[in-house]
């Protein structure tokens, strides 16, 4: 039985797969960008008073 590397399905769904890949890459960039902005603004800094009351 011969196996072909490229199934016809791959060709059929090429556009869809490329689109999905680009979407995922954009999502990664978005999460990375948001993280940088939020850390830069100090959104994740814990209030020192809160820290001491927690001890």
């Amino acid at each position, binding site marked *: 039985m011969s196996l072909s590397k490229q*199934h016809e*399905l791959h060709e*059929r*769904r090429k*556009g*869809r797969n*490329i*689109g*999905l890949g680009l979407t995922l890459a954009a999502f990664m960039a*978005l999460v990375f*960008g*948001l993280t940088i*902005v939020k850390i830069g*603004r100090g959104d994740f800094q814990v209030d020192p008073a809160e820290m001491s009351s927690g001890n």
Partner: protein
Amino acid sequence: MSDASFDNRPIENEAQFGDFFALLKPRVMTLVVFTAFVGLLAAPVSVHPFVGFCAILFIALGGGASGALNMWYDADIDAVMRRTAKRPIPAGRVTRDEAFAFGLTLSVFAVVFLGLATNWLAGGLLAFTIFFYVVIYTMWLKRSTPQNIVIGGAAGAFPPMIGWAAATGTISTESVLMFCLTFLWTPPHFWALALFMRSDYDDAKVPMLTVTHGRRSTRKHILAYTVLLAVFAIALGFTSIGGPVYLTTAVILNALFIKGAWDITRRDEDMSEADNFAVERKFFKLSLLYLFASFGAILVDSVMTRMGVML
């Protein structure tokens, strides 16, 4: 192993990336993006540009997701109407289950990420908008009341309010009036369309006002909503986001809009048939300009205030 497990739809019917994008109703999305952007920028709080970009993107995705869920539920109506028959589901390129999964996943994604990127009031408002459009409008009231357009308009009116909430974390008079602007604009806009596209709605058996209450009554409704819209539109000019540009634009546009609605009310079917609904078509085109110019004017005033330009 055979290939029997593969999806065997014909190649020409294979869903492409663009078909899933079409499920998001990109034309409606332009309105969502624009009004949300104005709501965000008109707010008296400066937002980091990247956070602002993300907020608009997630609001647009949430709006798009509700569009996909609408197409999932309304596939039977879409197949009948000429305007919607080529949409991905009636055309056979995307199955109803695929559209449902896509819309639901994207809805959750958009709400969670808007909440994380900005605040949970904005996220909650987006979740409510999706729920309102899909469950209250699409599933419940669209097929059962001739006021469907009025109710559906509320869903389209939320984006500037969400944009405002994303920036300020609050709901205020300004954001509620921006909501009213789109909410009251929607009925005259769509009823004018229904007057000259009647066969579409009749064939789909959607209880449009033109069918249930008659075309004479629809013309009167257009005028009533247009007058009501003018009151709220002018009132918006006297809030903190109203400036000389908006106020001038609002006075001119509302005068033209009321004049157009008055002309529609004075006509009967014979007059409309005679000139192929010229006045109704003109009013519909004016309605498109009305919304973009009104929100555009708010944007101009907001930018001028930020730059310290006073007229």
